[in-house]
């Protein structure tokens, strides 16, 4: 049976893993290659590395980090942050990534998704969407606005429509982060993930807000997520992967265990 995936995210700046609360205060949680390998052997199903600085000067550092991390991993490895062109993506694949996550650049030009998918396959393209709850003009219903550049700027796009468009452009997966929940440990925004999962056929990875094992049960249950991603709860050992997988299994959610 196809299992629900638990993905560990490494937020990296200048070659070090950091994780902020609501993208603000950053705490150093170690070496990415070492951490990735430790999470993989603990039972993580996948590793995502996000370069949160992603300035031009730091790009060389990123590729070296990707190379060192990929060497340690025998599970799928996604790299995102600052990928603006097919060449950027190619460099990251060449360094050992299996998938790239694109965000702001794809919003600016959705053809980027098509170009990367055309050369490396849709399975290699993850479109990252940072979404925030919003009231529309009439004030009715539930709406999610797409934010960019690390969740700071408005894009004028609606998350549900953008997810659909990204799929049409050739995205293989959607990495959906709730900007309302990110860093709060209050639980995933299951209404957000359910809204997106209902309109796309590609897998939806829920992100933002993981604080307890029950939150994962919720996001796989009424959130209809295919995968769930978290960072700090794993880095700081607040939840052990083995305990989480057993808890999910006990709640009838298929997971890869033992692995």
């Amino acid at each position, binding site marked *: 049976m*196809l299992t629900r995936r638990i993905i560990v995210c490494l937020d990296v700046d200048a070659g070090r893993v950091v994780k902020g609360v609501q993208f603000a205060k950053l705490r150093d949680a170690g070496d990415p290659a070492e951490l990735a390998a430790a999470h993989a052997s603990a039972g993580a199903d996948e590793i995502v590395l996000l370069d949160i600085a992603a300035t031009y000067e730091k790009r060389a550092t990123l590729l070296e980090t990707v190379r060192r991390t*990929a060497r340690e991993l*025998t599970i799928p490895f996604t790299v995102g942050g600052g990928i603006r062109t097919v060449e950027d993506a190619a460099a990251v*694949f060449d360094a*050992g990534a*299996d998938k790239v996550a694109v965000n702001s650049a794809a919003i600016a030009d959705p053809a980027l998704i098509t170009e990367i998918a055309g050369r490396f396959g849709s399975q290699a393209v993850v479109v990252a969407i940072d979404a925030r709850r919003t009231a529309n003009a009439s004030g009715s219903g539930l709406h999610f606005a797409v934010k960019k550049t690390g969740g700071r700027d408005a894009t004028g796009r609606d998350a549900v429509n953008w997810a659909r468009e990204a799929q049409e452009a050739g995205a293989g997966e959607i990495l959906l982060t709730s900007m309302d929940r990110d860093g709060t440990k209050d639980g995933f925004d299951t209404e957000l993930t359910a809204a997106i999962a209902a309109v796309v056929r590609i897998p939806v990875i829920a992100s933002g807000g993981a604080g307890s094992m029950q939150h994962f049960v919720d996001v796989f249950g009424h959130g209809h997520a295919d995968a769930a991603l978290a960072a700090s709860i794993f880095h700081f050992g607040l939840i052990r992967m083995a305990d989480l997988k057993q808890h999910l299994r006990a709640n009838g959610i298929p997971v*890869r265990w033992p692995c």
Partner: protein
Amino acid sequence: MLAGPTAGQDAAEHERTAVIAIVDYRAGNLTSVKKALDRIGAESFVTSDPEAIASAEKIVLPGVGHFAATKVLETSGMRSALQNAIQREVPFLGICVGMQWLFESSEESPETPGLGIFPGQCEHFPGEVKSPHVGWNDLLLEGSSRLLAGVPQNSFVYFTHTYRAPVVSSSVARCEYGGAFSAAVERGQVFGVQFHPEKSGEVGQAILRNFHELPC
């Protein structure tokens, strides 16, 4: 967890094993396959040269992306080199689309012929399941297999694909997702896996090691 020698020991004990040609047909990313073979101590090189394929001792045909990408095999002269190698019983491992190409054809690109070593056409997943099939699913092993030797029943491996190959008499592992499909096929020296052994943790490494250690 599977017990196995470390990469270092492996390299030392199998200095005489064949060099593996990884076929590059401009379809996606070969780095993962190359790295995985490096990790188990298997010597390999990436090539799109029909002559290099013709003289290869072992061949891996990776594959991500579209079935139509295999057209390049035809136009580049690699198809006949691969066909000849298979006829000469050079051990051959097709991964993902590389395995689908061993079947007659695929709905994904009906005008592109496969090798037809295994019967039938690769098809899209039925509408009632999400597609592509992405993630870790378990292997339902059937019969004996040299490629999957030592792999426990219901081992999890990593899949990512939109089309699937039918279950045939040469299937040595099935997978269930909107019905059964071939997860692994094996006949003589021809092997195919729908999943990605290079991304399937220790189970995947064990499978690649089995291929690496096959006598030529």
